Every structure is written in C-alpha cells, then in structure tokens.
C-alpha cells in the first residue's frame, strides 16, 4: 500500500526534475538566511546560481555535526523563532546537544512522511498503534505519534519504560502495531514470557523498529517471538526524525528514502568523494523542503549503501541498506546516541579523576549494557583509600552519566595498567554486541 501514490511513484525523470527545483530553492534560501551557509559557500567559492543540475550538488560544501554544535542553539535556523512551533534536541550532554526546529509546515511534512512509513508497513486507519518510543526532546515518540494521527490510526502514547504496564496494555488494549527499538521489542517479549503471557498470541501483527542498528537475525527472532512482521525505519533528528526512510512490507529489503523531500549521496568518509550508487559509504543528506532547519549535504556518519534497482512495491524512491556501522565513534545504547567524548567530559568534571577510561558495550537479555571502567588515579587513592569513599565515587560517576546522558551505566574502578596505555589512538570503546551478522 502507498500513502501518497503520486509522489512515491513519480517516474525518475519527474522526480529528479522536482528535486532540482527544490534543491535550487533550498540552497538559495539557506545562503540568504543562515549565516553559516553564506560563509561556508563563500569559502568554497560557490554561489546558489551555480547549481544548474543535480550533478552540481557535490560542489556544495558538507555540513557536519560540529557545524551544528558551533551554531548552538539556534544559529542554523532559517526562520525567526516566531515561525518555529517545535524544538527537539539530541540526547543531553555536558557538551552541546544538537537542537532542531520545525515550522508548522515542517511538522506537516514530517507527519505525512511518517504516515507514508506506516502505510508502507501495511498499517491502516483501523489499526491501534502502541508507540513505545520515548516522548520528549527525542524525535522518536512525537514523530511517530503525529504520523499515526495523520493516518487516522489510534495511538497509545505509552512512551518508553515501565515494561510490566506495557505488557498489560498490550494484552488489554489489543494494539495491532508496535513501534520501539528492536532491542526493546525483544525485551518486551522476554519479560512477557516471564510474566506467563503468551506473547505470540497478542493481537500485534506489525512492528516498526529503528533508532539503533539491528540485524536480519534479530528480525527473525522478533518475528518469531511476537508473531509479527518486523520492519526497519530510518531517521535522525538533524534531518527530521524518524521517517526519512522506511522499508516496505512488499520488498522487505532496504528502506525507501523519501526522495521528494531528501537527496541522498554516499561518500568515502576519508576523502569525501562521492561514490557510485551501490558502493558502501557514508550517507549524506540534503533536505529539500524543510523550512526551519534546512541542511545542505549533512554528513550522517552512518555507513550504508544505496539500492537503485526497482522495488516490487512500485515506489520509485531509492532504497538504503541497513546501517552497517559508523564512520565516527558514536555508540547507540538502547536508542540513545553517545559519544565517548561526552563520557570523558563527565569524568573530567569530577576533580579527582584522570581521563583514563574504557567503555564496554554489551547486550544482555536483549538489552544493551554500558560499563565504564575508570582507572583509580593517584590523587583519588591518596585522598580516599577507603572502600566506602571509592564506592561513593563510583555512584557519583553513575549518577552524572544518568543525569547528563540519560542512560544507566555500570561504573567500575580498575587498576591503572588494566586499560591499554595509549600509543597513538586509544581504544576507548569495546563493543561486544554482535549486531551486524
């Protein structure tokens, strides 16, 4: 099923003509309304008028997450605050989160794209949608919510957490669709079983999962345990939120990128060179219709590849494969994005500590675990050679990580030489999860 038949099945030629027209408009608008883009284009010696065809896109400079941080909080906005109706932000940090803004039209576009995602998954207005993505600054909860309402389905805005209550509602309200991170779906299945609930006989029939990397093997497991069809969704708050790309129930192979609103490129993360379609590289997005927060050639750091062969569903929009990794050191814990530098900043904020640490990521009973191993510094131990003082230090680090990053970490003090001493680049993160099969 297709929500917006006209735009989702545009012949490539018409689609590309539409893309060019919209690209020229957004480049012009960004150049004249956002100081950053004027400086960035001027430095690269390019004018909006130089974009005469889609092939001219690579002439435009990239935009990076650092650029967004440098313009924190509202420096990248292309409209005055009076036109902004909503703000979202990436996970809070001791550094600067990424703040994004939406005009009313941006919210309308986002709602439509999310509605397209639901329909691609086979969801209709008669469905009841259990939305277990977190509501708040994170785009997941509200993004899904508005899309579900646009479609006319019934939404249960359950948000994240309180798993026992979720299982009760899954039994009693009888939702037919569930949206959450794939690892939370497996966790729900497991806890439900532990409560004696037959999770395969719930009324659920479709799951829309994203916000963290997962594998075909996890898909099979989720489908078996919940007796549903599990589909992959992609998005990031900078570009819009969930609903940038969605797998269709007919194809189940790659996510259609809504190309009437975004242009996607893959690049070599080292050189920045544009790769030919099908080659594995870093995804770069340009937003074509966003008013409040236009992004030109934004480097997502997500590694994937594009699938250009036609899909049996009839959509003409290009597909992207599962995200296969990152070209930076970002890690995703239970759907929350974390950079090692954020953890380092928290540790350095505590007076006695030195930045000798290691981050161990694992997955236990289908939930991501985060362990921070911190070396006991000479200063710490000189001041506090008592068990209870060291334990309270562990608790303080744990509390700070929870407060700033929103995830619970296990904190473990370790002997100095336990962590590999740095020769060149430190190996800060050890990810034991085997997600990419």
């Amino acid at each position, binding site marked *: 099923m297709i929500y917006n038949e006209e735009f989702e099945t545009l012949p490539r030629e018409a689609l590309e003509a539409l893309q060019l027209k919209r690209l020229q408009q957004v480049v012009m608008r960004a150049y004249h309304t956002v100081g950053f883009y004027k400086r960035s284009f001027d430095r690269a010696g390019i004018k909006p008028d130089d974009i005469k065809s889609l092939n001219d896109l690579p002439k435009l400079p990239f935009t990076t997450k650092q650029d967004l941080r440098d313009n924190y909080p509202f420096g990248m906005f292309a409209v005055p605050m009076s036109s902004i109706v909503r703000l979202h932000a990436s996970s809070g940090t001791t550094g600067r989160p990424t703040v994004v803004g939406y005009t009313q039209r941006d919210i309308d576009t986002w709602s439509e794209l999310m509605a397209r995602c639901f329909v691609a998954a086979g969801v209709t207005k008669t469905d009841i949608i259990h939305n277990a993505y977190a509501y708040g600054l994170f785009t997941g909860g509200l993004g899904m919510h508005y899309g579900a309402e646009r479609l006319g389905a019934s939404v249960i805005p359950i948000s994240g957490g309180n798993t026992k209550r979720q299982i009760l509602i899954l039994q009693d309200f009888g939702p037919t669709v569930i949206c959450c991170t794939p690892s939370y779906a497996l966790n729900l299945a497991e806890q439900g079983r532990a409560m004696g609930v037959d999770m395969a006989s719930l009324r659920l029939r479709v799951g829309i999962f994203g916000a963290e990397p997962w594998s075909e093997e996890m898909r099979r497991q989720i489908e078996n345990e919940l007796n549903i069809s599990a589909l992959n969704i992609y998005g990031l708050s900078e570009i819009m939120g969930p609903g940038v790309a969605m797998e269709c129930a007919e194809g189940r192979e790659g996510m259609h990128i809504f190309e009437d609103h975004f242009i996607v490129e893959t690049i070599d993360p080292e050189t920045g060179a544009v790769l030919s379609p099908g080659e594995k590289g870093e995804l770069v997005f340009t937003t074509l219709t966003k008013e409040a927060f236009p992004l030109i050639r934004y480097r997502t750091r997500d590694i994937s590849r594009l699938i250009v062969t036609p899909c049996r569903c009839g959509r003409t929009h290009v597909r992207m494969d599962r995200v296969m990794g990152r070209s930076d050191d970002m890690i995703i814990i239970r759907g929350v994005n974390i950079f090692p530098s954020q953890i380092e900043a928290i540790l350095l904020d505590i007076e006695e500590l030195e930045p000798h640490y290691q981050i161990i990521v694992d997955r236990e009973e289908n939930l991501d675990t985060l362990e921070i191993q911190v070396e006991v510094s000479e200063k710490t131990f000189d001041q506090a*050679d008592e068990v209870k003082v060291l334990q309270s230090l562990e608790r303080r680090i744990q509390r700070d990580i929870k407060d700033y990053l929103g995830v619970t970490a296990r904190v473990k003090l370790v002997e100095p030489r336990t962590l590999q001493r740095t020769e060149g680049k430190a190996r800060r993160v050890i990810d034991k999860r085997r997600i990419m099969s």
Partner: protein
Amino acid sequence: MKVEQLSVFIENRPGGLEEVTRILKEGGINIRTLSLADTSDFGILRLIVNDVNKASQLLKENGFRVSRTQVVAVEVPDRPGGLHSILEVLSREKNKRRVSLRLCGAKRRKCRHHLPVR
C-alpha cells in the same frame, strides 16, 4: 609505636592478591600483617611491612595505586582480656579514630594492634 601502613588498590580478579605478594616476595619484603576490605569489584589491601619505602616503590613500579597512612601499633598482652584492656582505654577517651584489628607476632606471646592516626 607509630608505623606506616600501605594501602593497595586491587581489582577483584583471580590472581590479584597473588601478584602483590609475588612482587613483595621478589623484592625481599617481609609482610608483618595485612587486612583486606573488599567489594564485589575491588578491594583495598592494607599492609605493614619491614621496608615501607621499598615496598611502596616496587608496587608503584608495577602499576599499582598505593597510598601511605600513619598508624599506631600497640602491643597486646597475650592473655584473656588483653585486647579489651586496650580498647577500654580508647573508648573511655572517646577516641574516634578508626580501629582495625590485625594480630601478629604470637611467637613472642605479644600481639600488635594497629590504629590509624589520621
């Protein structure tokens, strides 16, 4: 008698304590007494040794975190009520110092009891 006590941070892992005793043995250090306070993750080993400077240096060279504390060593008469006679005095003085019990030197029919003085 005032003596210096070494505290050593040890992760709770197999062979952790053995590593410390091996380093001290190879350095010709004699351990007079020790105690260990531990959690599931780590422990703090407190040692009184014959050569505190050398022991401290050896352990630091091997990557251990070591700190030093002044403690009072008290000779305890080896008879019923021996320890009590000392604690009685301390408690009457309302002494708030930390008391850790470590007994050694039974051969000389006397025991030592160490009280940190910080």
